[in-house]
């Protein structure tokens, strides 16, 4: 162990119940951060607190539950301004002079409006519906909807739709797996999500890392992403997916590009991304062929041209100050769906200062975008997909009531695979085999298990959504979309009430 002088105190304290520890060595063997150590001479297992990141692998793996990980208290004088975290960050930068990197979504105490919004339920005046006995439609179609539908009758008086419907995605449940690239997460994690999505009739997203050859078979449940780095983008890739998503921004790091460190670029990634092994995979901050809405339209249509107008094209942006105007531009540029990623959206690696301080909460963004598109009369031209920190089915249904068509879940999906939100994704040594490319770690995630668990989550949420809809007396999720009357605010003040477009509880 390195013995260096550092001002940074430990983050976690490893408590081991010595009366329960049977010296099996599982914790030592499993911790890739080397936070456990076996002293053979004394037959003792020791913890190295400094190394602990609190990802709970040892806690889960210990056969006798002998390990507890505790948050280390601030050893310094308490100070409201200078919290332990701020001091730690400062010391870290004083030591290294670097940009602080983080993984996962922002843990900052920006208000979570979901928690202050409550749902309606039917009582007496209109009956609630029992989803166990009556049909309850949660199927959702994503894509541009025509302004009107023209129907003609042929000679035999059979109706026929004359209007040309642009390609649509059919979702059995309005929840998709968010873009996480092969690179940021392991191939086994991708496989888990892809399998779960295809079994649940929904979609997963490749992220910007291309599509590994093993994943082409899940193509019809795949959304392929085109980002500024254009990694792994070629015609076959575009055609392999069910839809193409142009990534302009990401909620966790609006305005900056991605950066996959060279040590994560192993053989498989290098094949998939078509770049040399060990080389940094840098996605520039902007797309260098998009400097205007007009340029965006050009990219959208070049993709449509390349895919023979068979695939819907999505555009993903992060939720920022004038998101409504931007979204309007995107819809007018010809996107079939707009994806908005809020400030709590996750990431494999982002500068901490950006993640925690740039962007706006997704709740507000959905509300303003939906409102603006309606006002401009173009809401039907594109679907609205929300992303960024969805934690449960209530968040999903509230987002839909605010105006979203569907949501992306990223962190929640990873948690089904074992993620404990330790936020060390950028290190590339994820103990759960998710955000890593190290062979010994990636094999800890068996896609058979991962897919089952991810699928279970979607199943559970789907049932819950049906229950909530039933309680509201609604039998189709389409009737809830943008139906803000079913929402009430508790403890939200003007002007946010008017931005969200919902009434306070009791009103």
């Amino acid at each position, binding site marked *: 162990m390195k013995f260096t002088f550092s001002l940074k105190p430990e983050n976690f304290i490893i408590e081991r119940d010595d009366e329960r520890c049977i010296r099996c*060595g599982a914790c030592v063997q499993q911790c890739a951060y080397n936070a456990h150590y076996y002293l053979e001479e004394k037959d003792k297992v020791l913890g190295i607190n400094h190394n602990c990141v609190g990802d709970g692998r040892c806690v889960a793996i210990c056969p006798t539950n002998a390990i507890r990980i505790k948050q280390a208290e601030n050893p310094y004088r308490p100070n409201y301004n200078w919290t332990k975290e701020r001091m730690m960050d400062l010391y870290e930068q004083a030591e290294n002079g670097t940009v602080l990197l983080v993984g996962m979504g922002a843990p900052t105490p920006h208000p979570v409006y979901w928690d202050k919004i409550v749902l309606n339920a039917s009582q007496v005046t209109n009956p609630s519906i029992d989803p166990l006995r009556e049909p309850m439609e949660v199927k959702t179609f994503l894509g541009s909807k025509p302004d009107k539908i023209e129907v003609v009758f042929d000679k035999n008086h059979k109706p026929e739709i004359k209007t040309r419907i642009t390609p649509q995605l059919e979702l059995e449940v309005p929840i998709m797996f968010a873009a996480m690239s092969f690179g940021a997460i392991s191939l086994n994690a991708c496989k888990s999500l892809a399998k779960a999505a295809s079994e649940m009739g929904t979609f997963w997203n490749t992220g910007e890392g291309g599509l590994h050859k093993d994943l082409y078979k899940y193509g019809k449940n795949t959304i392929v992403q085109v980002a500024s780095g254009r990694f792994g983008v*070629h015609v076959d890739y575009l055609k392999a997916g069910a839809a193409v998503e142009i990534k302009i921004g990401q909620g966790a790091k609006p305005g900056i590009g991605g950066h996959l*460190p060279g040590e994560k670029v192993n053989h498989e990634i290098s094949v998939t*991304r*078509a770049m040399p092994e060990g*080389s940094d995979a*840098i996605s520039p901050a902007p797309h260098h062929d998009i400097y205007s809405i007009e340029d965006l339209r050009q990219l959208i249509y*070049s993709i449509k041209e*390349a895919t023979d107008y068979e695939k819907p094209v999505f555009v993903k942006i992060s939720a920022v100050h004038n998101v409504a105007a931007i979204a309007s531009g995107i819809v007018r540029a010809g996107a079939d769906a707009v994806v908005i990623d809020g400030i709590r959206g996750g990431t494999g690696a982002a500068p901490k200062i950006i993640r925690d301080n740039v962007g706006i909460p997704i709740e507000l963004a959905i509300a303003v975008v939906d409102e603006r598109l309606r006002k401009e009369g173009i809401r039907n031209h594109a679907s609205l997909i929300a992303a960024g920190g969805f934690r449960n089915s209530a968040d999903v249904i509230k987002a839909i009531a605010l105006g979203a068509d569907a949501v992306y879940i990223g962190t929640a999906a990873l948690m089904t695979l074992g993620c404990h939100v330790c936020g060390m994704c950028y290190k590339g040594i994820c103990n759960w085999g998710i955000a890593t490319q190290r062979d010994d770690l990636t094999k800890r995630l068996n896609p058979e298990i991962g897919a089952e668990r991810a699928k279970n989550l979607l199943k559970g949420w789907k049932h819950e959504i049906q229950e909530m809809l039933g309680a509201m007396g609604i039998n189709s999720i389409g009737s809830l979309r943008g139906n803000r009357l079913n929402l009430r605010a508790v403890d939200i003040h003007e002007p946010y009430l008017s931005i969200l477009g919902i009434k306070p509880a009791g009103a």
Partner: protein
Amino acid sequence: MNSITIDALNLYYRELNFKIKEAVRKEGIKKVIIKNARGQRFIGTGLKEKDVEIIIESGVPGNDLAMFMDGPTVKVFGNAQDGVGNTMNNGKVFIHGDAGDVICYGMRNGKIFIKGNVGYRVGIHMKEYKDMIPSIVVGGKAGDFFGEYMAGGIGVVLGLNNDDKPIVGRYCATGMHGGVIYIRTEKIPTYLGKEVKIFELNESDKEKLKSLIEEFCQEFKEYKAEDILKSRFIKLIPVSKRPYGRLYSPGNHFPLPEENYFSNKKIDIEKKYY
């Protein structure tokens, strides 16, 4: 010869591209000649047929010529606009004139030859993987940000026209972390990206360059390969495959495990099991 001529005058880009695709895919036509191009976008976009030739005989094709293209050859007898060979996967493009900005952005393989000048942000983020090595040869001069973020491939600027502009604009090769740029010049460009170093050409460089320039001269017949190759070139290659590796916090307080704890070495297996 199995060919077709399309008059593009007054054709909407979608119609033109539809016609090209129909001809190539359904009728098996190997040579498509386009007359009177009027800035129609996406010509050749997403085409995969290897031995197809698209020749733009007159007029100017629009943006994103040969985008995502994977095999065919495109020749333009005139100027081209922005985005030529954007994210191109394979094939060849010859432009007998100037081209605009963002040429060969994120290009994965294939070759682009431009007789005249190019605009800004050319060769950004070109890639490279094993024998997939994209290359661009610019006969004239290049604007700012040539080869920015370049991750692989070969960029060549020849500066064959005699204007007094610098051969490449400012910030050439900024953030470059792979590939190589050859510039035919005596002078070192100004504001060069700090991620690259300048070298003289070695034998293998000369060979690579020779084959590219020969191909260039074969198409653009007024130039002689021997003459060009006689001139002095400089080579720019990145210092590191990881230009920003140190900018972000390494978080070095986790010593990476060298040897797994329960592996043979650490535990005295003889004591434990024998």
